[in-house]
């Protein structure tokens, strides 16, 4: 039973990270039907920013919770600025272009950002400080669950809840939903669509940065390439849950995390990806729009 619980919690942690990144994919897709391949790179840039800030601040003698919050905050702001800029440079000029063009632009942006960080920083793996300290009350169960895992799971839950509330009740959230339903109509009714899209990119990037900071602190190392695999997995999670759906992204992330964890635990880690992507194929056969996705007919 202990073993099951360990795998369950391990999968939950992994799934939470996938979910945090998947939210960005799903929000952007929901609004402008673009798969933002550069999203994984935002996650990576968030982690790098936090590393640089944390190194500088710890030199100045800061530590503990304030260090985590400050480094995380700078990472979120910096990554959001990147997300905003990427949209303005790479996607906005292509908004009227055929759908393939922004997709290619997104892939180009992803490769550009990877190489930019590779040149500006390093190709080596870097050590990432454990920003999340071990809590004392976690000591008795630390062999099953570590403090950083608890923080990751809680952060994901809180972020998702706040995001859902924001989209449901705030003015901007309402405008986002309107834009997602019909961009032209929303524009005609006075919604500033450009602003809505920018806000979407900013929020999505911020969430990815949170994910980047938390998981890097959890596993203790980063390099310029970490965004690629995390991005692919998160994208899979978004598709699994139903791309465009916010609860779907979270559910998809969790299911993917659990599948990988249990496949490793009870079968073999050799087949981790086989099970994860096999499940994806299986679900898409029966629910082509993903678990919580609504299949909509093409708008005329």
């Amino acid at each position: 039973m202990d073993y099951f619980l360990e795998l369950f919690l391990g999968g939950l942690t992994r799934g939470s990270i996938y979910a945090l990144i998947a939210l960005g994919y799903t929000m952007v897709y929901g609004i402008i039907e673009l798969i933002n391949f550069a999203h994984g790179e935002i996650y990576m840039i968030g982690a790098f920013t936090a590393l640089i800030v944390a190194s500088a601040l710890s030199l100045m003698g800061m530590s503990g919770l304030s260090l985590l919050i400050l480094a995380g905050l700078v990472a979120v702001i910096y990554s959001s600025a990147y997300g905003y800029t990427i949209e303005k440079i790479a996607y906005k000029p292509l908004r009227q272009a055929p759908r393939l063009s922004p997709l290619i632009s997104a892939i180009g942006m992803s490769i550009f950002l990877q190489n930019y960080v590779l040149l500006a920083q390093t190709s080596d793996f870097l050590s990432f400080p454990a920003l999340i300290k071990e809590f004392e009350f976690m000591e008795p169960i630390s062999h099953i669950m570590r403090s950083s895992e608890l923080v990751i799971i809680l952060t994901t839950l809180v972020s998702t809840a706040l995001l859902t509330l924001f989209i449901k009740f705030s003015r901007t959230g309402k405008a986002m939903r309107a834009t997602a339903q019909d961009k032209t109509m929303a524009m005609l009714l006075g919604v500033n669509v450009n602003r809505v899209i920018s806000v979407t990119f900013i929020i999505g990037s911020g969430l990815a940065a949170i994910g980047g900071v938390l998981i890097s602190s959890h596993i203790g190392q980063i390099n310029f390439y970490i965004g690629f695999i995390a991005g692919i997995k998160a994208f899979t999670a978004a598709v699994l849950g139903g791309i465009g759906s916010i609860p779907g992204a979270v559910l998809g992330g969790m299911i993917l995390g659990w599948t990988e964890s249990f496949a490793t635990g009870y079968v073999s880690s050799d087949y981790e990806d086989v099970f994860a992507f096999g499940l994806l194929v299986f679900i898409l056969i029966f629910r082509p729009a993903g678990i919580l996705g609504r299949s909509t007919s093409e708008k005329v």
Partner: protein
Amino acid sequence: MKRLIGCLMALSIMLFAGGVYAADTIKLGVPGAHSGDLASYGLPSANAAKLVVDDINAKGGILGKKVEILQEDDQCKPEVAANVGNKLVSEGVDVVMGHICSGATKAALNIYNDAKIVTMSPSATNVDLTKSGDYPNFFRTISPDDAQAALQVDFVINTLKAKKIAVIHDKGDYGKGLAEFAKGYFEKEGTEVVLFEGITTGAVDYSAVVQKIRRNKADAVVYGGYHPEAAKIVSQMKKKKMDIFFVSDDGVRDETFIKVAGEYAEGVYATGPIDTSTNPMAIAAVEQHKKVYGSEPGAFYLNAYAAVLCLLNAVEKAGSTDYDAVTKALTTEWVETPLGKISFDERGDAKGIGFSMYQVRGGVYVEVGE
């Protein structure tokens, strides 16, 4: 027709000349890749042979005879290597230092074996060449592909006294290859391998694998792969309060591993090549190459240098080029070479070269030896 006869006559004269020549020189065959894509693997060995032979001839040769080099190009191609082998045998070669590539070596070895000619490769690492026992005439001055695994298994069983082993690898050619060798040797020694699994490189975390290692109650982990994944696994094991041995390979014996894993790297074992850079003979051999050829020596230069020294020393000690006497001398005599003091085991692998066990102590890798 006249032309053909002319050719045949020319050939027979050449052959005859070879036969006459054999009496007063010791013929060292140096086959290898000297042209084509892989020439950079073969040419340094040919250079090494020339330098050693020139030295020896300047001192009057061995057994009162000069040493003569028969250099042949096999381009690392097995079919060419077989032709080269036949040619060398027909020219009456006494000992062979080559070939370079494992495939080419294998193709030519039967020919030398049938002709009872001792062959020593500076670079062919294929395990079967020695382990199969098919080629009693074969020796080498480089570690076989499984050398690290053999050392790991020996160390885990005899020094660490671990009973239950988890063998983990990264599914890559290098990591999985080593892990499979290690698993095989553990099983041969009767030590239980409780877990044998591949992990996905670059995955977000490895907590499930770490839990599985704990569940199987392994008391040592042998990991085949590179340092980024090793650092993640080691940190996660230590953070989950698992205090078991972690033994890995030269992909992990890297400063970056210690830098990234930090305090968690402490106590980790890894095999790595024995350091020859401070060996005075190695320094002298490199200097000699720079002086004569005006460049840094390339791949397998020191291995070839050592191979030629061992071969010629064996001929001298044997007192002749007789096959049995030379093989006996190779397995009994220890020779000072740029790779250190070496001899050969009965299968033909060199003793005293290759890999050593290192452990992270105080933030640096320290050699722990056997």
